[in-house]
């Protein structure tokens, strides 16, 4: 199996995630797109670990999984807080920081 298979799959998943972050208006959907991006990176890390036949890539992937879990927890808590305060999670309506 060629290494480019995994790496191209990772690149395509990453691009779809970036498209989701740009296109989506609902904050929860943006968080889902960020999960796509993190998983694309993990696929690449596992491919490189297989290429070098080492365990370091797996360890990095596990770090990324743990950080992603923390990120989703805090992110969804922030989304809930914004929803409670403003009754909306549409990202283009959160313009309080616009000058």
């Amino acid at each position, binding site marked *: 199996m060629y290494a480019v298979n995994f790496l*191209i799959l990772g690149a395509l998943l990453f691009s779809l995630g970036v498209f989701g972050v740009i296109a989506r208006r609902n904050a*929860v*959907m943006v*968080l889902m797109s960020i999960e796509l991006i993190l998983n694309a990176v993990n696929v690449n890390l596992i491919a490189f670990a297989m290429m070098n036949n080492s365990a370091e890539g*797996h*360890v990095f992937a596990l770090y990324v999984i743990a950080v*992603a879990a923390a990120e989703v927890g805090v992110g*969804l808590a922030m989304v809930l807080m914004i929803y409670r305060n403003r009754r909306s999670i*549409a990202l*283009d309506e959160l313009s309080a920081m616009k000058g």
Partner: protein
Amino acid sequence: MNALLAADVNVAQNVGFYVIAAVMLYGAVRVVSTRNVVHAALWLVVVLGGVAAQYVLAAAEFVAISQVMVYIGAVMVLFLFGIMLTRATIGSEDGLNNRGWGLGIPVALLLAGTMIWVVVDQYRGTVLESPEGPMPTTALSDVFLREGLVPFLALSFVLLAAAIGAIVLARKD
């Protein structure tokens, strides 16, 4: 096609890879394009399960199990709770996309084209050896508890801080 299909290595692995990759990419397109929030979450399950299957193909069993437990078990429940608590309409919904969502298409195409070009240029013809078996978990723990010990402990504190932070943010007072 010849450049992407290593027929001399392991046919079953290649076929499995392409089938799972096709399902994953279809699921990912549905996640970013569907008009229903709950359906997007369920398609995300398909993508995450596909990633776990690719880990198994790449001999990363421990990471695959962690992926299933953390993502499909925990993160998806969090997402569904988030959807429920923000009272998104269950059913199709207009206004899930920004007004300027079309801008995302050229950005994503440009990004994908650049990355695929770089990757193919650098790693064309690099063959991944078929591993004899799964990566032993003892090898992972050797890395975790030797050179990776400090980041490992730091990660525990990150998780602790995230848990406390989420409670503080989401608490009603």
